[in-house]
């Protein structure tokens, strides 16, 4: 009993203290991530950030950085031998020796770097989130599930009734997605990494996930975390951008009267069929996402109520919860402390900001070209975070003029933004793959 190390009973604390002496960056990273997780959770609860994503993500970040332990020799060896070997042979040898001695730090949640089949099969039986990661995350299935759910919520009739306005605003709001690529390349990222981080400007989480998994798999964890973090911020930050760039007098403009006759379900269904077929022919690399989105739209327009209930409930919200949780668990300090993360943080916010500004400039152009009839606030809805950006635009307009309704036009731009971002994803994947 006198040889009992009391710290060894509390391995989360022991690994934390050991990392302080071995690698202080990891120590501060773990503590910082735990604090950040708590802050995200708090901001999600307060409604400043998107709670559906931030609450599981924040808790996951706290738990994964707190729950580091000494992996048993078999599990440690499976991770050390199953991952891509380190460039330094001596470092790889030392890692394997540490693992064999039962001194390797790790968690029982996820081992995202394991690639080899035998070791992966073993880890699948140990880490509780590994099946979700391997079978849903790394192949993009979770992004496709989210797109099916989003597709069910989308009404393409808004786009079809106002094609000029919707398409113009959606293209204007892709400014950040396009302009960030050369900026990122100038900052030293590869074209694949640049394209992946530029997609943050599209404000479409599944698209960022898909692009980074396809083009820059080694960077997809930080890129996706940055993307979802900023998507939450867009919800809280875009209102300030609107108030800063659009005076209250213009925000209060009432839109011209709307048509009473609506687009029929048959027209929407036919549009979904033609759009899906043509876009899949054009961008086979993005066809899983395109199919998922248009499948959701087709199910909605065909009125398949059982499928609608399945997709807009369990599938969409289940995928969102596990996406948030998996992203949080991926934020382990040793995994995310990459020198490029700071650049990604800067580029992500630049991309999102430029897209917002592009959308508002588009809104101003629409305002002038329409003879000052169109409310310029709808420009922000061209950023394709459905339906958050449309809701943000309507909320800001309502504050200036409670009887002004811009939601239908804003949703048209918003839906068209999703399609435009999907097309841009296809173009990037095709060009840079």
């Amino acid at each position, binding site marked *: 009993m006198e040889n009992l190390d009391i710290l060894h009973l509390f391995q989360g604390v022991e690994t934390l203290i050991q990392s302080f002496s071995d690698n202080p960056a990891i120590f501060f990273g773990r503590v910082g991530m735990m604090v950040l997780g708590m802050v995200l959770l708090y901001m999600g609860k307060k409604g400043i950030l998107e709670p559906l994503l931030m609450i599981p993500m924040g808790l996951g970040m706290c738990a994964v950085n707190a729950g580091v332990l000494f992996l048993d020799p078999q599990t440690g060896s499976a991770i050390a031998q199953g991952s891509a070997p380190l460039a330094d042979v001596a470092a790889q040898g030392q890692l394997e020796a540490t693992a064999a001695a039962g001194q390797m730090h790790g968690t029982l949640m996820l081992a995202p770097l394991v690639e080899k089949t035998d070791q992966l099969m073993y880890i699948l039986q140990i880490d509780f989130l590994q099946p979700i990661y391997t079978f849903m995350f790394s192949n993009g299935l979770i992004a496709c599930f989210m797109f099916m759910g989003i597709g069910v919520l989308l009404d393409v009739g808004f*786009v*079809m*009734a*106002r*094609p000029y306005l919707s*398409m113009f605003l959606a293209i204007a709001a892709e400014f950040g997605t396009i302009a960030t690529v050369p900026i990122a390349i100038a900052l030293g990222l590869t074209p694949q990494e640049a394209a992946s981080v530029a997609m943050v400007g599209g404000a479409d989480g599944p698209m960022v996930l898909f692009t980074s998994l396809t083009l820059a798999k080694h960077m997809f964890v930080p890129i996706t975390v940055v993307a979802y973090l900023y998507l939450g911020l867009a919800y809280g930050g875009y209102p300030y951008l609107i108030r800063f760039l659009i005076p209250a007098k213009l925000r209060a403009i009432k839109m011209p009267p709307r*048509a*009473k*006759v*609506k*687009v*029929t379900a*048959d*027209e929407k269904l*036919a*549009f979904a069929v*033609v*759009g899906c077929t*043509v*876009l899949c*022919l*054009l961008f086979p690399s993005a066809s899983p996402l395109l199919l998922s989105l248009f499948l959701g739209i087709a199910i909605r327009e065909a009125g398949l109520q059982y499928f609608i209930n399945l997709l807009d409930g369990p599938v969409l919200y289940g995928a969102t919860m596990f996406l948030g949780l998996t992203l949080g668990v991926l934020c382990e300090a040793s995994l995310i402390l990459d020198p490029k993360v700071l650049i990604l943080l800067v580029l992500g916010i630049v991309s999102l900001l430029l897209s917002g500004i592009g959308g508002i400039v588009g809104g101003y152009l629409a305002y002038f070209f329409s003879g000052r009839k169109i409310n310029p606030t709808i420009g922000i809805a061209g950023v394709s975070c459905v339906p958050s950006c449309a809701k943000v635009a309507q909320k800001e307009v309502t504050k200036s003029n409670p009887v002004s309704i811009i939601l239908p036009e804003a949703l048209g731009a918003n839906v068209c933004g999703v399609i435009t971002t999907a*097309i841009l994803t296809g*173009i990037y994947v095709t060009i840079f793959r």
Partner: protein
Amino acid sequence: MSRLRVLATPYWAIGTSLAFLGVALARVIGPALAEDAARRYTAAGGHVLVGLGLFVICLGVRNRLRAANADTAAEPDQTGPQNTA
């Protein structure tokens, strides 16, 4: 079948044809060209044509809505207050 009559307009036919022509240019004809510049321009033209095709379809729907709304507006209002004098 009568509900599908709204799809039997020149806009749908022209838009769909343009979109598929764009795909053919971008994915079939473009890659088969020998010259690099021609290949790029053909592919880019194909992408634009696909967008244009989808846009023409939307334009057709918008025009149908406008025409239908003009008819609705021209009809006497049946729901307004009636003269009972």
